C-alpha cells in the first residue's frame, strides 16, 4: 500500500488488459470451419462453447444426476459435430442454440428408450432420476411430490409424438418463442403452434391418467 502523498520509485510498466490474458474465444464460423478441417483446437472451442448448454438441457430433462449424463453429453457433442460437418446446420441460429436443440432431441430419445426398456423388461423400479436431485427448497413432502410430477412428465413426454414432444420441449421447457420453434423444427409458425397446443393437451390427458392411477392405488 502506497501511502497517500508518497511517490513510488518503481517504473511504470504496461499491463495487459484482463480480457487479453484469457484464451481467445472462437466465433461460430471459426468453429465450423475448424471442425470441417478436422482441427483439434476447434473441438476444444466447440466443447467450451456448447457443452454447458448441452449439459444443462440434459440435466433439466433427465434429472441433475442422471447416470448416463456424461455419455449423453458426448453423444450430443458428436451429433453437433456431424451436423456441422455434413452441413445440416444451416446457420439460422447460434451454435449454442443448435446444440440445445440437439440435446433436447437426444433427451427425448433417451426418455423413449428408457420407457421402452421398462415396458419390455417390466422392471419398473421407478425412475432413478426421480429419486435424486430434489430442489433445495421446500418441505420433504413437497419435494417428493415435485419429483413424482417430474417423473410423470418425463413418462408423458416419452409417449407424445416426437414432433409434439419436441415443440413442447422447445417452447415450454427451453423457453424459445414460436418463431424460433418453427425455425428450429423447420415447420411453419402455425404448425409449430398446433404442435405445442396438441402436445399440451396430450400431456394433460396423460398426466391426469397417471394421477388417477396413483389415486386409485
Amino acid at each position, binding site marked *: 500500500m502506497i501511502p497517500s502523498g508518497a511517490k513510488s520509485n518503481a517504473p511504470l510498466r504496461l499491463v495487459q488488459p484482463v480480457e487479453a490474458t484469457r484464451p481467445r474465444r472462437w466465433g461460430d464460423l471459426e468453429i465450423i470451419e475448424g471442425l470441417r478441417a478436422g482441427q483439434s483446437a476447434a473441438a476444444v472451442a466447440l466443447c467450451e462453447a456448447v457443452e454447458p448448454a448441452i449439459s444443462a438441457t440434459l440435466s433439466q430433462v433427465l434429472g441433475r444426476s442422471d447416470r448416463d449424463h456424461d455419455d449423453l453429453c458426448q453423444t450430443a457433442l458428436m451429433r453437433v459435430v456431424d451436423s456441422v460437418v455434413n452441413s445440416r446446420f444451416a446457420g439460422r441460429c447460434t451454435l449454442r442454440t443448435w446444440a440445445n436443440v440437439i440435446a433436447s432431441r437426444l433427451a427425448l430419445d433417451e426418455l423413449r428408450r428408457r420407457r421402452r426398456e421398462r415396458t419390455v423388461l417390466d422392471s419398473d423400479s421407478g425412475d432413478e432420476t426421480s429419486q435424486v436431485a430434489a430442489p433445495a427448497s421446500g418441505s420433504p413432502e413437497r419435494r417428493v411430490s415435485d419429483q413424482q410430477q417430474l417423473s410423470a412428465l418425463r413418462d408423458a413426454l416419452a409417449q407424445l409424438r416426437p414432433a409434439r414432444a419436441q415443440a413442447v420441449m422447445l417452447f415450454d421447457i427451453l423457453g424459445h418463442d414460436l418463431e424460433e420453434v418453427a425455425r428450429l423444427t423447420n415447420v411453419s409458425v402455425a404448425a409449430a403452434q398446433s404442435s405445442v397446443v396438441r402436445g*399440451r393437451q396430450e400431456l394433460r390427458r396423460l398426466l391426469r391418467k397417471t394421477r388417477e392411477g396413483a389415486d386409485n392405488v
Partner: protein
Amino acid sequence: MSELMNTDAEVGIEQQALELMRRERPQFEDEVRATARRARLMPDLIQYVESGPKRRQQRAVTLYGSGFALAAAAAVALWVSPTLFNSESNLTALSNQGDFLLLRGEQQETVHAGAATQLHELDQLRTPATNGATLTLPTGSNVQVNESSAVQIAQINAGSYETLRLLGGSVKVHVPKLKTGEYFAVLTDTSKVVVHGTRFTVDVGQRATPGTTCVMVDEGLVAVHTAEQVHWVGVGENWGCKTSEAKLDDAPTAPAVAEAEQPEAPAGATQRNVGSTSSEQREIASLAEQNRLFQRALTHQRREEWAGAREAYEELLKRYPGAPLAAEARVQLRKIRDKISAEPR
C-alpha cells in the same frame, strides 16, 4: 397465439409439471465438476473431429465404390439381358424349299435354298411364288410362310411374347403349348389372331375376302381380335374366309353378328368348310350354339357379371362336354369360381 397463454386462473396440471421442469435447469454449475467432465469428454471429441475428414473420405470412397459397382452391375445386366431375355439368336428362318428374300432395314439379302439365317426384330421375309419358307421361333413355334407371302417379325421376346405381322399371302402356324405369360399372335391390317391352341392358318391373300383376314383352325382354339370384338375360332372352324374355301355362303360373316340375328341358324359365322348335308348342318348348328354360349359367357365376364358367366359356361359344358371350346370354358369357369370365392361376402 392466445391459445398458448394461460388465461385460466388455475394453471393446468401439465403447466405445473412443465414449470417444475423449467426450474430444473441448473443456473450455475460447480466449475470443478464441469471442468472434470469436459476433461473426460475432450480426448474422444478431439479424436472424433480429427478423424472426420478421413472418415468422410472413406465414406465417399465407399459411396463412389457402391455407385461404380451399381453402374457396372447395370451395364452387365444390359449386356446380358438381350442374351437372356431377347433370344433373337434363337429365331431362325430356313429356306427349305427355295430362295426367299430377307429385308433388313434398307438392305436386301437372298437366302438360298437349304440355307438358314438368323432373324431380328422388324426383319421382313418375302417368299417367291415358287416356294415358301419356315420360321422357327424361340418358344418353339413353327411358322410356315406360304408362297407369295410376306411376314415381318413385329416383336420378339422369348419368355414373353412373339408377334408376327402378315403383310401379304398366308402363314400356317404350329404353336406348342404356351407357358404362363407366353403369348403368340399374328397381326394383319384388320385383325389380330391370338393363339390359344396349336395349329391354324392366317391368310390375307387368296382365301380372304379383300380387306379381311381369313383364319382357319386345324387344332385347338384361337381368338381373332377385330376393332369391334373378339371372335373365338375352334377346331375345323374358319373366320373371314371366302366361301369358295368354305363352300357355303359368298360373304364371310362375323360370328357374333350372325348369331345375334340367328342364334340357331345352321349357317353361323363359324362355318366349317364342308358340304351342306343334313348331319353336317346339324353339326354346324351345334357349333353355332356352342359359340353363342361361349360368347354369352365372355360378355358376362367382361361386365364382371360372374354369376351369368358361370351359368353360361356351365351350360356349355353340360350340353357340349367334348366341344372344342370346352377346355377354355373349364379354365374360365375355374377362374370365375376363384374370383367368386375370393370376393368378400
